[in-house]
């Protein structure tokens, strides 16, 4: 009996292995056939090297693909690639920076037509990016600071434009010399770049910064509430708070509300999502303005940048995706409830004038 059972398990094990073998070969075929779908909306034929039967091979090396922002970004990049006869091979290091280094190294060894690197650590990736340039592989990076960007297409969502847009609104609302609070964290590239702009505004507009607090954790929104709560109890006369990251902004809004300071304190944030829209549009919400890009449009824009480079039509190797400032008044006046409504009402979010060509319109 024991032997029979053993043989049965052996058979079952073999069948399972055979099945996994099948699953993986199916995956391989479907992914290569998906890339041959022609572009639908272009008003001009594809130029070389996109005009052949064989799809252009681009490796996308990502630090992480998880979370609303990165999922949207990846979807936009994939849609744009499909429209331009590009076959994207995507590796996702899931925030394991050593793995991202290996992924990039292997991408270089595979000699694709081009490489896109999405986020990552400078010290880890710079030597490999230099190696890719030396190997003659066109390469674009997104939101990755380089010490030597020679021959690299650098793209980023403009943190400067994000901070500037929303801070201009802050000054317009409360004026020079106002009492302000600042809630953010250090050590995150994007937040650090926004902090530089904040300091400029504090100095130039003689703002009176009465508190500065904040942190980024696994549950940022919740963990910032007690910090801001304490700061507000100490400084109830603050007029405006700048919280340049939507998870933090949500915590600040909560703290302001539970201290019954709506109407007295205005909150200025950065980023947008459906969840954020709900918070901004809630009754008497103190969150009056935010600044954002559409991650899907940004992902698509990065793919267009490297595509133009391959076609020899990219004339400036630094591409910035500007942000749009969105006020609470704008949202209510246009009765915008979702990101889809917002995309329709604010065409600038689609980035359809950045890195485009007749043969390469922005995907919508």
């Amino acid at each position, binding site marked *: 009996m024991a*032997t*029979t059972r*053993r*043989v049965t*398990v*052996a058979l*079952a*094990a*073999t069948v*399972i*292995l055979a099945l*996994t*073998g099948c*699953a*993986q*070969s199916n*995956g*391989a075929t479907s*992914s*290569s056939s998906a890339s041959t779908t022609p572009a639908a909306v272009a008003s001009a034929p594809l130029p070389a090297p996109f005009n052949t039967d064989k799809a252009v091979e681009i490796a996308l090396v990502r630090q992480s*693909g998880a979370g609303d922002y990165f999922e949207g970004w990846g979807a936009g990049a994939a849609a744009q690639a499909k429209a331009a006869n590009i076959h994207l*091979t*995507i*590796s*996702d290091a*899931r*925030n*394991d*920076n*050593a*793995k991202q*280094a*290996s*992924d990039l*190294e*292997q991408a270089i*060894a*595979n*000699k694709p037509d081009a490489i896109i690197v999405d986020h990552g*650590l*400078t*010290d*880890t990736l710079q*030597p490999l990016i230099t190696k890719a340039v030396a190997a003659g592989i066109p390469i674009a990076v997104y939101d990755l600071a380089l010490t030597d960007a020679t021959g690299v297409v650098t793209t980023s969502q403009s943190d400067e434009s994000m901070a500037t847009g929303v801070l201009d609104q802050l000054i317009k609302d409360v004026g020079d010399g106002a009492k302000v609070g600042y809630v953010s964290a250090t*050590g995150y590239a994007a937040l650090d770049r926004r902090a530089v702009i904040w300091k400029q505004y504090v100095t130039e507009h003689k703002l009176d910064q009465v508190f500065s607090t904040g942190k980024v954790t696994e549950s940022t929104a919740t963990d910032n509430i007690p910090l801001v709560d304490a700061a507000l109890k100490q400084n109830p006369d603050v007029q405006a708070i700048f919280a340049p990251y939507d998870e933090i902004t949500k915590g600040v809004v909560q703290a302001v509300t539970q201290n019954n300071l709506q109407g007295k304190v205005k909150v200025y944030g950065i980023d947008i999502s459906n969840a954020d829209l709900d918070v901004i549009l809630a009754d008497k919400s103190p969150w009056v303005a935010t600044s954002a890009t559409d991650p899907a449009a940004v992902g698509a824009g990065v793919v267009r940048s490297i595509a133009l480079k391959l076609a020899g039509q990219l004339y400036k190797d630094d591409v910035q995706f500007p942000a749009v400032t969105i006020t609470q008044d704008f949202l209510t006046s246009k009765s915008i409830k979702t990101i889809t409504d917002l995309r329709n009402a604010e065409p600038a979010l689609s980035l359809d004038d950045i890195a485009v060509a007749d043969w390469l319109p922005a995907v919508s």
Partner: protein
Amino acid sequence: MSSPSTLISARRGERVSAFVVKWGFIAVTVALILYFVITLPNFRTVDNVFGMLKFVAPTAIAGLGVALAMTVGGIDLSVGASAGFAVSVAAWTMVIGNQVGGVAVIVVLIGGLAIGGLNALLVVVARVPDLLATLTTMFVIVGLKLLIVDGKSISSNMSLADGTTAPGKFTADFLALDRGSVGPIPIPVIILAALTLLMWVLLERTRWGRALFAVGANVEAARLAGIRVQLYRTLAYMGCGLLASIAGLLLAARIGQGDVSAGNSLLLDAMAVALVGVSVLGIGRPNAWGTLLGAVLIAVMTTGFTMAGLPYYAQDFGKGIVLLVAMLFSFTLSRKRTVLTAGSTSAS
């Protein structure tokens, strides 16, 4: 009681299952490699072969450490944390301490031995069950690491709390630990080959190896046979700590900064390759070449699946299935008693 014909078919069944146990796993690996070689032109290049081995070297080395802890019937859940600790300590020594790469290597290795010593202290002296002891160690050293570096990733030329710039940087010779190569062979691959060979000699060709396995099989019998049981268990944990810190050195050189999240993903992969090692060839106990094969399989699957365009979540499923099959081979099918035990008591 049984008729002659059922006896014969039972024996044939035994032979079939013995054959599957012995060669099934190797066959799966070879089949996967062949499939990728045929379908993916970029897979069969020399660059890619060394690239894959280099990629998996830290995992394989940490896996050798886990295998070593398993020989004495133990387990070490702190290998990923030890490697992460090594990354931060190496960065701190060079960037803040302004020391050369060689000093950083020595400090890291001493740190690895100390972590192994802590595990041994908890398991051997304090008699905490090994699963709980090494889990505790994991939390302690992750916390200690964050304390040392103020929760920050230490990078060359970083600005310090007092506004000045850090005095040191990652030195070129340290970075070469991962980024350098001898001819076409990357240095991590050489280190991995050397450590695998060393582990094989230790476990299979010396009386120390036999003593380690004796302790793992039956502590009481080993003690009665005159083996210094506590000493061997201590040495196994310290060896594991040392190997985990070597894996950390490679990660540090690969990342080039004291990334505080480094090593997070190492534990499960290291555990998986050590377990595959136990099952390969129906050996039924931890061993060096099996662990290496497990690591190669992980590298082949990760690279092949990525090249074939499979998303990472499907890759995890594939890895899970392969591991499941490995476990069936080793625990359910094997005629030999598998020496791996849960907790410090021998279950075989």
